């Protein structure tokens, strides 16, 4: 099992795609699709091969070699079930990304696929790095190509959105960098040696007063990425302006790096400080749920609507994680997967509509069901996933999160549950304004007749997403089975750590 190999081959695949486009036009997408498919198959096989020999309930160290000796920085990767689930999600969505970019990207095509794959490589690095300097390195690696995706292939206001995205993430990750250096310094103080190695840090004995500040450094960086109200506002702009694949990648996996950071670093490294901070963070989660749902309803831009709904859904993750409850924790993990799929689905849908009518404005939409009943059916399922219809993955995720959170914060959870009404409202607006009603008169005549139903490629994308949503919705143990023992251990570890 070599994550390094996966990352390197992703980068090489990006390079090859870039090169291939130079040789023959329109070949980049085939190269990218084929190579990512091969890499994914490799990942799955390698996983199955090693599954019997390795215990992924704990972090399983894959590689650990010296990198910058002067500061004792290492190249260290490790995976556990959390990483595995998130990396699998990333690889799956990268296939979706390539498929939705198929006809959309017409300029600098080769370079586009290079950026896409480089960003994915960076994300996989983030999910697996256990040396904190390396983690920070990957954190930046995924950011730069992402910014490029928005800035070069985005919509009308792309430069503003790209800069906003870049500055938000940079400023917040600077805080994290400070916290990382401080942690290394604390390690130096306590053991006489610098270390950026995650598991060394776990063994540190941090005074609570210091831990609180360091925890905040990490927390803010991850809260911006998640994103949580009030530092969410980069997301609607970035989502709206990014090309379809960019939005899919942003919502599907980039946001999950924030949640991953919270689970892996904030909760694990600073259990006591997090527990003290939990009521505040849980409140932020609830505010995000309600505010996101309300803002989603107010939007007229389809992609902005979906972006705000993401904020609302990620609020569930925040609430669930900071409830320190085993059920809620499972809910949080499942929300990551479910939202990854459902938001990717909705953004793909937005891309498909945009490719037909060249507008994202809901006011220009309506009555698409007439010409595109299949697309309407899929849109309905995707919207239903967003408003948590039972039978789809999101319901189980939200239900577990709320049931768990209710054990700890009954009042907050009641407010969070109001998000169910909010999500129904924006879900209705999303689906009904686009597919029901009449065709808008404002739309140019040729586009009405050109509104075609799904092509085979689009059908593939939609049905892949729907089948996963339904399968996980009825059989969530596909994901949850890996977290049944591990998470209870984690929560107990945290609580025990906090009590001591």
């Amino acid at each position, binding site marked *: 099992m070599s994550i390094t190999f996966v990352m390197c081959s992703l980068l090489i695949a990006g390079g090859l795609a870039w090169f291939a486009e130079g040789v023959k036009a329109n070949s980049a997408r085939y190269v990218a699709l084929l190579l990512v498919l091969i890499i994914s198959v490799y990942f799955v096989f390698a996983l199955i091969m090693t599954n019997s020999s390795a215990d992924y309930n704990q972090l399983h160290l894959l590689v650990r070699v010296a990198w910058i000796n002067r500061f004792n920085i290492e190249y260290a990767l490790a995976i556990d079930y959390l990483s595995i689930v998130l990396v699998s999600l990333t690889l799956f969505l990268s296939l979706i990304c390539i498929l939705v970019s198929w006809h959309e990207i017409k300029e600098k095509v080769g370079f586009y696929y290079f950026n896409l794959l480089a960003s994915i490589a960076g994300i996989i690095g983030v999910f697996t790095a256990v040396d904190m300097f390396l983690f920070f390195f990957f954190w930046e690696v995924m950011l730069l190509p992402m910014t490029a995706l928005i800035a070069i292939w985005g919509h009308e206001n792309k430069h503003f959105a790209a800069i906003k995205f870049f500055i938000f993430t940079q400023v917040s990750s600077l805080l994290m960098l400070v916290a990382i250096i401080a942690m290394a310094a604390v390690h130096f103080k306590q053991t006489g040696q610098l270390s950026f190695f995650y598991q060394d840090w776990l063994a540190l004995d941090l005074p609570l007063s210091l831990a609180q500040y360091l925890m905040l450094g990490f927390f803010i960086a991850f809260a911006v990425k998640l994103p949580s109200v009030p530092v969410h506002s980069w997301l609607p702009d970035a989502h709206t302006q990014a090309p379809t694949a960019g939005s899919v990648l942003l919502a599907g996996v980039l946001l999950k790096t924030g949640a991953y950071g919270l689970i892996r670093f904030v909760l694990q490294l600073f259990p006591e400080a997090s527990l003290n901070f939990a009521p505040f963070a849980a409140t932020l989660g609830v505010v995000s749920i309600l505010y996101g749902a309300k803002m989603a309803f107010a939007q007229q831009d389809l992609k902005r609507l979906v972006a705000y709904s993401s904020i609302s859904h990620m609020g569930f993750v925040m609430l669930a994680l900071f409830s320190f409850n085993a059920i809620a924790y499972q809910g949080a993990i499942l929300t990551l997967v479910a939202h990854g799929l459902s938001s990717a689905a909705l953004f793909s849908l937005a891309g498909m509509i945009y490719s037909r009518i060249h507008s994202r404005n809901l006011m220009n939409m309506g009555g698409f069901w007439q010409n595109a009943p299949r697309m309407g059916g899929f849109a309905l399922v995707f919207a239903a996933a967003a408003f948590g219809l039972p039978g789809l993955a999101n319901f189980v995720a939200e239900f577990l999160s709320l049931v768990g959170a209710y054990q700890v914060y009954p009042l907050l959870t009641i407010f969070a549950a109001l998000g169910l009404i909010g999500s129904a409202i924006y879900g*209705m607006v999303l689906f009904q304004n686009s597919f029901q009603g009449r065709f808008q008169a404002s739309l140019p005549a040729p586009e009405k007749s050109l509104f075609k139903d799904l092509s085979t490629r689009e059908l593939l994308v939609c049905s892949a997403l729907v089948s996963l949503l339904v399968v996980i919705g009825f059989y969530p143990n596909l994901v949850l089975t890996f977290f049944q023992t591990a998470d209870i251990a984690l929560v107990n570890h945290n609580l025990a750590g906090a009590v001591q």
Partner: protein
Amino acid sequence: MSESITVTLLALLPVYPLVSFVLLISFAKRLSWHVAATISVGAMVLSALSSFVVIEQLSVDVPVITAHLWLWFTLSSSEQVNISFYLDGLAAVMICVVTGIGLLIHIFAAAYMREDANFTRFMAYMNLFIVAMLILVLADNLVLLYLGWEGVGLCSFLLIGFWYHEKANVLAARKAFIVTRVGDTAMAIGLFMIFKEIGQLTIIDVNESARALWVVGDSQPYWIALLLLGGAVGKSAQLPLQTWLPDAMAGPTPVSALIHAATMVTAGVYLIARMHGIFLLAPEVMTYVAWLGALTLLLAGVAALTQTDIKRVLAYSTMSQIGYMMLSLGAGAFSAGVFHLMTHAFFKALLFLTAGAIILALHHQQNLFKMGGLLKRLPLETTLFSIGLVCLMALPGSSGFFSKEAIIAQLFSSTTAGPLLWFCAIVGALLTSIYSCRLFFLAFMGNARFETSLQPSSSKLLRFSLVALAILSIIGGVFENVLMVSLAPVFIAAPVIEILNEPTWLHSVAIATPFVGILFSWFYFAKYRVVSDVKIVENSSGLARFCRQGLGFDSLYTWLLVKPYCALAKLNRKDIFDQLLMLNAWYVSLCHDVLTSSQNGKLRWYVAAIGLTTLLLLLTLLLTVNVGEVSMEAS
């Protein structure tokens, strides 16, 4: 029959309509009417037959049949949420109604919707609805029940908005979904609370543990029952969440019959009956249930008196009949409530479907004031409709009589209801008979007020299902004993209402009331009844308009909730947090502008700037020196 076959049949119940749904939705318009109708109705036949077979297996020795399908998810080491079906007497009644009435309505719909361009999609939704409804009533735990609960809500939404080109239909669908979602959210919170307090979500365990854990009057069952009631009033269109049901009539008529009369709207009644273990521990909530039922009953009765649309009269009458069921549950007469649920399903489905046949014959005319004189022109429909109305008014001998009597008889002495609620029920019965007569006079008697020629459908399918429903409506009362026997073990915990010291005139009044109503209407609505030259117009006084619009609840909610939410959304469309954060950007660009404008390349500006700055520096210097000297002197 061996046990494993029974279990398999039970597990397969929702599978037939599901398979049909998948087939219809995948092949959509490529299927001809014959194929699509055969598949969808055939699936219902299979479902109905197997449910009758399965119910036959229930007996005193085998009061419950369960079918475990697979583990859904695990909540704690002791509580697993399964996809499992649980069939007892209560669920048996419900699946009979759902599959039996569902089958008849499917047959009717196959004929009624034949000409519609999207016939397959319609039948697919109807099948999907049956799947969700069966899951709802068969669920062995509350989460699975919630799945069915939301599933029927989605199907209801899809079917109300089936003719999605019309803005009004789309809005009605949206309203139905969101209003019921409000109730559903209360119910979801109820589930969270149940799990926190009891640690279980399996229905029988919850009912049993609640009895073991708490005594009557504890605060936990009070809140849980109240939250569950929230879900029930949403789905069953009771006060205060009743506003969506009249608008839901925008859907095709078979939908109104199946979803908004016979099955889905009674899900709230089913939920309360199912969770009676909790409700019995909270007598205050039982009283609330009874009062909500009674108020809805009266409100809907008054609103039905002034409607002009035949389907809206029936919608309000559904609301008011469910009010009776709620009243019955609140009084603790669970079996009577479920009995009325069943007979109501028979006669209300009949009424809606016959109304559909009439509407079809009149070229989609639903306005009562554009009907009239149909008695001779549509004799079959008139007979069928009268049968339905007789049951609705609960005239002696009809199925409605038995079930309504069973309810009213127990109200007076119930500890959670009482004489006042008994009077409400009687007034409700009076209202029912008055609006029924008004409806009958307007539609079937008097002048023919329509211009078009009548086109009654001659479809055999249509007639078959109508006649079958009419027979059920007439003889529905004979099921009383079977029903009470099968429900007895379910509601074994409910105390029997002892009838003590009741005045002797109670029964006579209850039986006489509908006749009083008929007599009153005979004279009061004489102008609707008699053929004459006087043109009849709808009452357009302020009070009538107010009643016609559902007694102002719609405008109340619009002003109280919808407008503020929309205004808030509009006000903050630009996202206040974003604006605050972007102040940073604004500040930076402001500094940028100021500094850029100072570098304008004009020499006299630079000279002036240098001069002014030097002056400023000198002044500062002088002042600080002076201040320094003064302070030195002072010290």
